[in-house]
């Protein structure tokens, strides 16, 4: 029979060795020596069978504790050393970014590309700027008031079902949300105009919007809209129709025209959908336009008096119109993109085409 094993001494010795280990390799060596197949600990474990039950249980427990203790110490030490080794490796390749020499960076001779949505948005903005509109932006995280309440859509109103909205888990439930359309910017703009003593508004508002739509060939849960708002004296529905027509021919080309048909939106009255000549068949009728020669682009109408009330504009003196449509949809139509999801895949073979 071998001499009884001094477990405490063994633990103390191995801990000291681990503490002084300078590399992860050394840690591995110490661990193998103390806990490996040929270690005294394992040997002691093997000889447990020869002891009486009480003794066996007591020693067995001490051996297990010792193993656990040493393993934990080894792990800590290994992690610390790994971090230090990584730090040393990273430090070894340290740069002083002030040591910039004229030829440090490779100079590219190829051009990248703007995203199709960006070029589409820019072109739309430019068209509207040419027509006398300012370009205004607003926040993507909105309150229930700006996205719905001020737009004549009270809480729990069925009309809210028209927008499947992402709500954020902050504040009271369903009070903070990702805007489902760019219309909240209208409200902010009108509030600002009122606060400034009421000045006329002629603005377009492009931006990113969010709806809980499962992505498919024609829908993305994150998408881009552009919205227009004109509030001035003497603005009429005829002005709206004329503005839409001017925009349509300016952006899509002289042979593309627009028409309005009645629709419902809580924040405009009278309201309309606007359609444009099918850009594919140029109005002769094809599958894309279901043979009608027209495709739907967006919604529009005269600012509803309830919206004017909500922001404090005197609707007797001021009248206004608003319109809105999808930027991504425009891009999809103009470039005949079969599947909208191509826009968010970021495959460079797609991106470099535009």
């Amino acid at each position: 029979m071998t001499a009884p094993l001094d477990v405490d001494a063994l633990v103390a010795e191995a801990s000291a060795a681990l503490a002084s280990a300078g590399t992860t390799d050394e840690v591995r060596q110490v661990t193998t020596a103390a806990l490996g197949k040929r270690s005294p600990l394992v040997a002691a474990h093997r000889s447990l069978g020869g002891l009486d039950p009480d003794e066996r249980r007591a020693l067995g427990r001490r051996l297990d504790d010792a193993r656990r203790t040493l393993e934990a110490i080894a792990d800590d030490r290994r992690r610390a050393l790994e971090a230090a080794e990584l730090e040393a490796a990273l430090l070894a390749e340290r740069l002083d970014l002030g040591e910039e020499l004229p030829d440090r960076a490779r100079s590219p001779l190829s051009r990248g590309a703007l995203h199709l949505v960006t070029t589409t948005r820019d072109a739309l903005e430019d068209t509207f700027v040419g027509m006398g509109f300012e370009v205004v932006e607003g926040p993507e995280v909105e309150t229930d008031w700006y996205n719905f309440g001020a737009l004549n859509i009270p809480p729990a109103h069925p009309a809210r079902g028209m927008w499947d909205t992402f709500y954020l888990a902050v504040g009271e439930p369903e009070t903070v949300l990702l805007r489902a359309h760019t219309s909240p910017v209208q409200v902010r703009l009108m509030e600002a105009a009122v606060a400034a003593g009421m000045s006329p508004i002629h603005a377009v508002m492009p931006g990113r919007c969010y709806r809980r739509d499962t992505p498919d060939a024609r829908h993305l849960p994150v998408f881009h809209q552009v919205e227009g708002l004109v509030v001035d004296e003497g603005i009429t529905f005829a002005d709206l129709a004329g503005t839409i027509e001017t925009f349509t021919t300016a952006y899509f080309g002289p042979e593309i025209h627009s028409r309005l048909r009645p629709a419902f939106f809580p924040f405009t009255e009278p309201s309309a959908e606007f359609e444009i000549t099918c850009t594919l068949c140029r109005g002769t009728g094809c599958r894309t336009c279901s043979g009608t020669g027209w495709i739907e682009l967006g919604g529009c109408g005269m600012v509803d008096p309830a919206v004017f009330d909500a922001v404090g504009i005197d609707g007797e003196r001021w009248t206004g119109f608003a319109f809105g449509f999808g930027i991504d949809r425009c891009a999809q139509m103009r470039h005949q993109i079969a599947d909208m999801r191509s826009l968010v895949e970021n495959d460079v073979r797609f991106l470099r085409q535009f």
Partner: protein
Amino acid sequence: MRVPLSWLREYAPFGDDVDALAQTLDDLGLVVEGAERIGEGLGDVVVAEVVEIGPIEGADRIRRVVVDDGTRPVEVVCGAWNFAVGDRVPLAPVGSVLPGGFAIGRRKLRGVVSDGMLCSSRELALGDDHQGILVLAPDDDGERPAPGTPLLAALGLEADVVFDVAVEANRPDALCMTGVARDLAARLGLQLALPEPPPLAAAAVATGDADGLVAVESPDLCPRFAARVLTGVAVGPSPRWLARRLELAGMRPINNVVDASNYVMLELGQPTHPYDRDRLAGGRLEVRRARPGERIVTLDGVERVLGQPGPGLGDTGEDCVICDGSGAPVALGGVMGGASSEIGPETRTVLLEAAYFAPLAVARTAKRLGLRTEASVRFERGCDPEGIDRAVARLCELLALTAGPDFSVEPGATDVRGDVPRPARLRVRTGRVNALLGTGFSDEDVAGALAPLGMDVEAVEDGVLEVTVPTFRPDIRPAPHGEADVAEEVARASGYSLLPRTRPAWPQPGRLTARQRDRRRLREVACGLGAFEAWTSAFATPEEHALGGVTLDAVEVANPLAADERLLRASLVPGLVGALRYNEERRSSGLRLFEVGSVFAVAPDGGSGGVPVRTTERFALALAGPGDDAWSALAAWRVVADVLRVADWSVRHGVPGRPAPSPLHPFRSGVLTCRAAGRDLVEVGVVGELHPQVTASLGLSDASGRSIRVGWLDLDLDVLLEPGSLSRRPEQAVPVSRFPSSDVDLAFVVDETVPAAAVASTLLDAGGAELESVTLFDVYRGPSVPEGTRSLAYRVRLCALDHTLTDAELAELRASMIAAVESGHGASLR
């Protein structure tokens, strides 16, 4: 909603030009999403009697059949075997064209001439059956149709068109045939004839629970409840024409009682509900709020828990239930009936409910229970509380056709009326209508547009009309907002396409803001650096959030589309890294990508305007091209800074003890700071390389298999692009000297702890007005300089505006620059 043209014609003499009708409906805002032509191409198909069937020599699958088409025997070849001599079958004669454009010609098969074709249901587009020829059944009197009868007549079918009409959410009145007909007739100038059923005897109208039939406990949820008892009902099939109409409209015929209820809903827009009175405890009804946790099994067999507040704003969980005399729920008011009192073959006595339920309450119940029904859709948009009497009378009229000789309507009626919407009366100024529309309508024009829509118009004074809006048009609001609604009606009546178009003009110029212009330039610059613009997800998983290294809390989405993508992105890192990986997996390597977009975090200061979220617009550029590294990112920043005229910037390098923030390489990256307009230093972003562990996770490697470096530039555009936030290079031109310049090369041995930029900056200051530029052109580390130092060699270009610098002046400048660097940085000239 499916609208058969034949059904519409019941109420006004609409013409045959289907395309014109569809266009008119479109122009009324009743958008036709499709038109299905029923029985098209069957005009030439006749009933024929089979007179002889014989084999064809050498053929075992087809037979020679002689049929009588009413005028003569016709010989055809047929491959079906499901008929016998004497049967009546459809014959498509030579020259006819079947649905789908299939032209029938004379053919010769195995020497037998076929003078037409006997047709299956599918060939006639009347059904899916293609097992055999359609054999016509005898009619109810056992008579079989005479040979030569047009097939459609024999089947009791008309050639028809079914429009699929999309009705806007604010037009409950148009969710029925008479409603569509009303709009269409008004536009076309046709007289509308509504069904006028014989009025029911109403000997005594009870308005409460006096007769014990109905008690309404919650008149706010159910403002009107009318009930009738129908006795001696024989439940059976509906008349064929009625069942056919239901089918055309997309509903399945069930039995005469349920069909009559559905028919009336489709015709007049008023949902009704028939109960088997014998299966109602106490034979009576009670209308009340559901108690929290109360349960009902609806007609669809699903058990539903009621009275539970929903997640939506203002949804307090109120459901209106209809209970029997024992208080047990038997229907979900305005949404769906219960299974327990369903009409069945044994039903003899019907308790008929025709009610007006509060729209908002129905909407909430339907949404919360996910239970949208034909009834709920109509009630939540607002039914006509005054349409109930006509609907009940019409239903009784229709049911009397088939309900048997004992059928009768009990004279007593219960009608519990609370606060139902009343006809709105509003003043409409013709001038205001014209001001909104840009038109020149007269008072008469306006009145003429409104009257056919059921509005009562009275001229009060010149230019002012008093309009009474019928209760079936809840979309037209009272004054003052209703004036705009009336303007829309006037516009619809005349046709949007016929309204004038004008082009408004205003003195204010259109423009982009400085920030918008600068953002465009930034994008162009990135593009010019060879980068492609990406658009990556605004949502992130917790792992992706951790990758971004943002220390602020992520904003959680309460109802994410995908459970793991439940956070809003706090950084552009995960998206661009993901895009690099996506392309790498498709063998597009060595890319440069950039993105401009919002990132979100829980606002540490609580936020503002009720939004505890901080949104920042950022620009990020990932440089993973061959040879790209931190230097590329720094060069990119230099270009950006130049374009945006950022005057005064520096990089705070990551050093031991103060590494660059994650997920960047701690010692090959740094924080970019700029001088704010108020002279403070502000952080505008980071520049350097992605941490090698991030790059390794991308699986990006170079040709030799080594993990590559990814240069990274990440900028806060709310700081960088905000006008006035940073000190910028002045716009004034700096004069350029006409005199030759001189270069002075200075190499210093400098301790590693001294940033090279600090040395350059000292040179810049010491060189004064005569200094034109400082360029570092060589860095040396090695045996010729002490350990822990390196040699930095600068070329300083000196020049004066008004003369050529003399050797003495150059020597003096040189000496002072050397002195400044030696004393300022403990460096020594090499």
